[in-house]
């Protein structure tokens, strides 16, 4: 007993105190961190000061960043909040980067060299509207021209030096929407052109110093405008009318307004609806008509004439002044696997300044955006470089006919992640020659020994670090014994699938989704399609990528099957029906392809793969296949069961109809679904029983069919603090998805979402805000099965009189009870995950993605509902921690150590073959991967274990034995001779 106590205490202490922190020299051994920025929206080149050339970009992931033009590295970057979308970016005074965000209500200035925030100004805003940022281009740094900002019905003039609002004009009453702000150089009067209700053009002349309206002119356009606008010169803009068939040139020279109408049909024959493209070209505009891009030159009197026409798939940049008052622009178009970059003068389209052809990877798709920049070559001629954004969101810099650098920015918007095994090492291939000679091997171990004896010099430490990385062989493209090397498959918003190596995070292969039905399907989700491990061993594993043609949920779906080893698409099919839900079934066919059901919007489900074998397997289990749908909008959860083949309606024998079995109707006036969650389908539970302190058994209620639902009062669905505690309550449910039984229901008065939850084995941990206590709370619910509680008697087990092997059916009335406990938690949370190991033996850790974009590992023992204020001795032995009102945040237990996973969206865990270890992959704007051992690596020696030391010790001991033996022999002999 005592020794058990001792051992347990030792175990407890060792795990509790040393925890899971990392030594400094271990950082970067098993983990990697990649920094991204997202798909670039705006780019502003900064080349005024020679020296470090950089480009300022703002992205769709709300990142503003400064990139090195030579290498594409990030000098600095700032990730704004998820709701703080960037509307405009500019450079003021030659030293500040100005960003306008949140629909024109936040203006910030960042110091250009280091990215420090200089000032931030909150601007008043009355309603949602398009916003506009106009930063004056002034070459004299000392003179402060105000920045004009329009957003939410207000026009503001803001000083660039300190962000002070100089004046503001309220246009909310008139409904005036500013379209263009013109600041003639050297004049204090600014011209503000805008529309009232899209039917009246108004020009204000405003004194930029005091904000007084000097003059105002307005003119009604009878047809109304469509809102698409392009400014062609300093005093002219071109807009489309509401029917999108007439181009209207609006001139506002000196505050006078003049309209000039040109029907599009005059320019192009048989024209359909026109669309003004975004590039700003001087005295010219680009219009998309009939799937072609036409260039329309705007004459002095507003006369329009077509000068050129290009195929639709051409991307263009804004025009840029080059020498001699001329402007040039860049255009990029595809031809086979090549892209052609052309820089032309705006005035003479035949005069091509630059023509380059570059080989381009097919899996990058089309060019979406081009940003052009000029520079002076060594021979004093004009050189051009172009920053291009591809369809897969990657960012490339083209210069001198080559890709100077590229960034895979698609990885900043990962939507789904799964893991896959690497190929097994072939017999012919020997284990990579890591240890070349015995001498090197010895040298390495001597170095390690020095390191462990704290004798190593700084150079040695570096050498050891290198050696470790090299000798671990972690970057090989084959499976390893411990399962540490794996592929992480990440599907991005752009519909590109990446395979990342867990060793160093490099991209092993990537593939852009394609479909016949539509140009570019969106990626929705990823599923393990074929994982051969018993049969079909000659086959490569494959994944199923579900995509959709269009953003609407009723859009037709696209399935692609991708070989994991090679990254090649095996097949892809346009399935002709929509995809609402994909249900992987627990059955595989003889080639280990997993059966999947795909539900469409009509209420039918479709079976995949479409083989007769799959059909026969499915028919066998037809009675036992259930599924559910969550209607988050109408607050109804419905359970369904298979009914029959829908052969009556279609000839498709793989299509089935379903019928409704149960509903849970949440009252719309008091509850709104904000979160639903199920267990991971592939989770392994090691033991179903839990031994209590008093040698009592508790059976976990381990069911795959449990659904966790959290609802809040509709009032409380908004921001935290927008309601009083009396108005808001949070209710959580555990629902059996076969029968619709509510197994657990608990309401938290005065609490509010957002709810972040994690569901594993028989427990749920969820995080929410307590309005009464003004704190975040974490609650744990554990659910136990009582129907098997009598199986404690050993004799019953021996004689087989237990019901442990009886099949469990959801139709039996469940006898369950729950235990729950709440704790305060000091941080707000972005996501929660839980570690998963191969056999589920290792204790679990919660991985909490905190608001600071870090990941905190918290032992599950801290959220044990059996914690009491004063645990008894027996409970302490079991590892129950005394109850505290809040959960501890131990700084050493941040698994991301010094890194931040900016814009953290999700955490994925996957087991390795070694039971103690789990893979953790976190994604957001950044990517982060590490291996975790929640209970330390009890089943293997660590990498830095010194075999040499062990060997030397053994040798020394053997030698010592012989020496002492010889000595004693000698002594004995001399004793006898005495």
């Amino acid at each position, binding site marked *: *007993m*005592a*020794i058990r106590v*001792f051992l347990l205490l030792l175990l407890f202490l060792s795990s509790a105190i040393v925890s899971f922190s990392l030594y400094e020299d271990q950082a970067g051994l098993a983990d990697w961190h990649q920094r991204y920025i997202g798909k670039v929206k705006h780019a502003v080149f900064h080349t005024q000061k020679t020296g470090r050339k950089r480009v300022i970009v703002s992205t769709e992931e709300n990142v503003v960043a400064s990139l090195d033009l030579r290498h594409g590295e990030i000098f600095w970057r700032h990730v704004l909040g998820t709701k703080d979308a960037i509307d405009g970016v500019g450079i003021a005074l030659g030293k500040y980067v100005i960003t306008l965000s949140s629909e024109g209500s936040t203006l910030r200035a960042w110091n250009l060299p280091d990215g420090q925030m200089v000032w931030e100004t909150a601007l008043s805003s009355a309603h949602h509207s398009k916003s506009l940022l106009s930063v004056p281009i002034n070459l004299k740094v000392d003179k402060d021209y105000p920045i004009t900002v329009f957003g939410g019905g207000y026009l503001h003039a803001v000083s660039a030096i300190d962000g002070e609002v100089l004046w503001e004009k309220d246009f909310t009453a008139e409904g005036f929407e500013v379209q263009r702000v013109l600041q003639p150089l050297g004049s204090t009067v600014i011209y503000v052109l805008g529309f009232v209700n899209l039917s009246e053009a108004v020009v204000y002349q405003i004194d930029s110093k005091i904000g007084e309206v000097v003059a105002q002119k307005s003119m009604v356009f009878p047809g109304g405008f469509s809102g698409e606008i392009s400014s062609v010169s300093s005093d002219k803009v071109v807009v489309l009318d509401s029917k999108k068939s007439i181009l209207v040139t609006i001139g506002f020279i000196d505050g006078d307004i003049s309209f000039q109408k040109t029907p599009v049909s005059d320019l192009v024959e048989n024209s359909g609806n026109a669309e003004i493209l975004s590039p700003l070209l001087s005295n010219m505009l680009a219009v998309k008509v009939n799937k072609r891009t036409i260039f329309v030159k705007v004459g002095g009197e507003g006369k329009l004439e077509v000068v050129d026409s290009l195929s639709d798939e051409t991307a263009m940049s804004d025009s840029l002044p080059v020498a001699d008052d001329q402007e040039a622009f860049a255009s990029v178009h595809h031809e086979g696997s090549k892209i052609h970059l052309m820089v032309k003068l705006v005035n003479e389209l035949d005069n091509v300044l630059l023509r380059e052809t570059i080989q381009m990877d097919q899996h990058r798709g089309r060019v979406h955006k081009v940003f052009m920049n000029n520079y002076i070559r060594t021979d004093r001629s004009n050189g051009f470089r172009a920053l291009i954004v591809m369809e897969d969101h990657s960012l490339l810099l083209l210069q001198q006919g080559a890709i100077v650098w590229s960034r895979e920015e698609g990885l900043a918007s990962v939507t789904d992640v799964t893991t896959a095994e690497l190929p097994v090492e072939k017999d012919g291939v020997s284990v990579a020659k890591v240890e070349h000679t015995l001498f090197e091997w010895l040298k390495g171990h001597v170095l390690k020994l020095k390191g462990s004896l704290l004798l190593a010099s700084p150079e040695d430490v570096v050498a050891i670090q290198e050696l470790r990385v090299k000798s671990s062989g972690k970057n090989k493209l084959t499976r390893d014994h411990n399962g540490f090397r794996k592929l992480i498959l990440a599907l991005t918003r752009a519909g590109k699938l990446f395979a990342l190596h867990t060793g160093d995070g490099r991209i092993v292969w990537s593939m852009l989704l394609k479909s016949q039905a539509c140009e570019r399907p969106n990626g929705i989700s990823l599923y393990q399609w074929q994982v051969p491990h018993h049969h079909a061993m000659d086959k490569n594993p494959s994944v199923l990528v579900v995509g959709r043609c269009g953003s609407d949920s009723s859009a037709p779906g696209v399935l692609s099957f991708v070989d994991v080893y090679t990254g090649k698409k095996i097949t892809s099919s346009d399935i002709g029906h929509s995809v609402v839900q994909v249900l992987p079934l627990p059955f595989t066919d003889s080639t280990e392809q997993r059966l999947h059901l795909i539900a469409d919007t009509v209420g039918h489900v479709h079976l995949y793969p479409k083989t007769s074998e799959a059909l026969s397997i499915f028919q066998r289990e037809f*009675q036992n296949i259930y599924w559910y749908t969550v209607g988050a909008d109408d607050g*109804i959860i419905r359970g369904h*069961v298979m*009914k029959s083949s829908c052969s009556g309606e279609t000839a498709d024998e793989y299509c089935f109809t379903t*019928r*409704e*079995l*149960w*509903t*849970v*109707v*949440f*009252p*719309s006036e*008091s*509850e709104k679904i904000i979160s639903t969650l199920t267990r991971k389908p592939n989770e392994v539970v090691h033991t179903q029983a839990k031994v209590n302190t008093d040698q009592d058994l508790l059976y976990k209620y381990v069911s795959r069919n449990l659904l966790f639902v959290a609802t809040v009062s509709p009032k409380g669905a908004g921001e935290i603090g927008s309601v009083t505690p009396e108005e808001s309550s949070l*209710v959580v449910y555990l*629902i059996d998805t076969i*029968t*619709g*039984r*509510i197994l657990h*229901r*608990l*309401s*938290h*008065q005065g609490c509010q979402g957002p709810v972040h939850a994690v569901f594993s084995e028989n427990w749920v941990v969820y995080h929410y805000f*307590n309005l009464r*206590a003004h704190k975040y*709370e974490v*609650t744990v619910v554990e659910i136990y099965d009582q*129907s098997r509680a009598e199986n404690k008697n050993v004799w019953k087990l021996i004689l087989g009189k237990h019901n442990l092997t*009886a*099949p*469990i*059916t959801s*139709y*039996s*009335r469940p006898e369950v009870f729950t235990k*729950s406990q*709440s*704790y*305060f938690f000091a941080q707000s949370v972005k996501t929660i995950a839980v570690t998963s190991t191969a056999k589920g033996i290792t204790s679990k850790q919660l991985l909490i993605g905190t608001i600071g974009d870090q990941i905190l590992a918290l032992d599950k023992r801290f959220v044990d509902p059996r914690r*009491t*204020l*004063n645990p*008894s*001795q027996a409970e302490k032995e079991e590892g129950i921690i005394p*109850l*505290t*009102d809040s959960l501890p945040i131990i700084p050493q237990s941040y698994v991301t150590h010094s890194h931040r996973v900016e814009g953290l969206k999700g955490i994925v865990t996957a087991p390795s073959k070694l039971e103690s270890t789990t893979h953790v992959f976190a994604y957001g704007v950044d990517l982060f991967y590490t291996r975790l051992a929640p209970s330390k690596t009890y089943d293997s020696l660590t990498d830095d274990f010194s075999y040499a030391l062990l060997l030397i010790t053994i040798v020394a001991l053997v030698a010592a034995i012989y020496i*002492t033996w010889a000595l*004693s022999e000698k*002594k004995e002999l001399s*004793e006898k001779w005495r």
Partner: protein
Amino acid sequence: MAKLTLVFFLSFLIFSSSIAFQSDELLVDDDEFGLEGAKPRSTDLYTSSSSPQQQQQQSPTIRRRYSDPTDLDSKVQFTLEHAFGDSDFSPAGTFSARLKTWSHGGKTLTKLRFSRNDFSAEEKDAFKNLLKGDDFYRIRLPSNVVSPPGREFVVASVRARCLPRDGLDEHFIIHMEGANILAVSYGSPGACQYPRQFKLPAKWSFNSHTILKSSEQAPRTPIFTEEILGSENAEGEVEPPPERSFWAKYWMYLIPLGLVVMNAVTQASNMAEEPTGGQAGGAQVQQPARRR
């Protein structure tokens, strides 16, 4: 052990007192909430047409409800409908209850009664077909009892073969939120054997058990103020570790020590004959230690 229970009891008191305080604040008519001072339970109301045991258990609570009639009560009735497989729903029984309106605007159902219609001849046939096909017997209730059917019907189903025992045993758990029905759990009162056997009921009458359930309140997160901790300390000598004998504590040290001593003794006796065997003796003493 007694101390331990005392501590538990104390902590329980702390919990329960804080909980009792909470229900006091929230609800005007506190005495409606069953046992005072207890952990706020879900206000389960059992009605049962053939389970006297349950009724007895719950009768004190129900008695209390009876003794507290309010003017704001109103009677409501809502129908249970059933369907056989894919057939249309038809009335199968009536629930009647008293709707109590609280002064703070909340509503609860009390005194739930249920009258089940017996199967007609066609329904019996339909049910037999269900049993043969192992198909679903479906029921539904309105989602709002004041203005049925409310937003939508609340549907529940069970494999028909789960119901027959002697008669037809059924068990409802109706989850309420005010006057709204969230969900109904429907099935047999006990286990449903799998694989399900085809079995016709001995008599075609229903044994119905009904439970009304409303939401359970989460206990407040305990806040350990100085006061509570102080009172804990004032209780004094919280749980001294259970006294164990000297042997139980130190046996793992004593046994090797004993071995060493024994070894030394034998060595000493050997040494008496051979006065110079000291070194060898030392080596021998190490042996047991190495073996461990």
